[in-house]
């Protein structure tokens, strides 16, 4: 009918260190690849959600509490729960792609790029659901 595991879709990570976190599919590999013969996706997600802010907080405190820690990971579709939400953020394909996992420097660069994009989007106030912690 309709394939819904596409880039831009918000998914919940179901297992591993980032279980319960929300992530965005950056690139999906529906039929798998040589070394991963199953459907999987490269996702970029939030490791540490931004804290709650109120109007009475000062600028410096606001900045501290709006920080986002991000992660990038390649995950099997079985370990993701898709949602009906989608967030369209364009990550730089050169920075965030599958090869970064071999080199830790590249990986942290990708994480920084994701973090910057997430914080930018959080400040605009759009996609509020994505930046809220999933309570369970």
């Amino acid at each position, binding site marked *: *009918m*309709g*394939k*819904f*595991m596409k880039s831009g879709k918000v998914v919940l990570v179901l297992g591993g260190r980032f279980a319960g976190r929300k992530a965005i599919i950056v690139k999906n590999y*529906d039929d798998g690849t040589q070394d991963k013969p199953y*459907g999987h996706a490269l996702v970029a997600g939030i490791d540490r959600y931004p804290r709650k802010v109120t109007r009475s907080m000062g600028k410096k405190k606001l900045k501290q509490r709006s920080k986002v820690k991000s992660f990038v990971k390649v995950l099997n*579709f*079985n370990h993701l*729960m*898709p949602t*009906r939400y989608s967030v369209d953020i364009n990550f730089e394909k050169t920075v965030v792609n599958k090869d970064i996992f071999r080199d830790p420097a590249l990986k942290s660069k990708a994480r920084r790029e994701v973090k910057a994009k997430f914080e930018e989007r959080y400040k605009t106030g759009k996609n509020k659901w994505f930046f809220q912690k999933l309570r369970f």
Partner: protein
Amino acid sequence: MVAEKKAKKTADNINARLALVMKSGKYVLGYRQTLKTPRAGKAKLVIIANNTPPLRKSEIEYYAMLAKTGVHHYTDNNIELGTACGKYFRCCTLSITDPGDSDIIRSMPQEQQPAA
């Protein structure tokens, strides 16, 4: 009374149609595979037995909603659904990827509408 009779008739209908799909079409049985088929966009109809745990039921319905696939709530439990498929095991969920000669896809959603 009339509603009961209609329910019985549709139950027989779906059994007959399922048998036809088993013979001529493609299907997958089981929870894990039925989660895979809407993800791949291949599911045409998803059938859920009535005694599946509600969490699992709603998860499958959500996947089907995302994939815009019809869901049919089978009126019997997983033992009966397995038997309807001609298998000797229980089956809680099944997904039809290719109906073959059967008209299960065309007729089932219509019956779903009044219920929904």
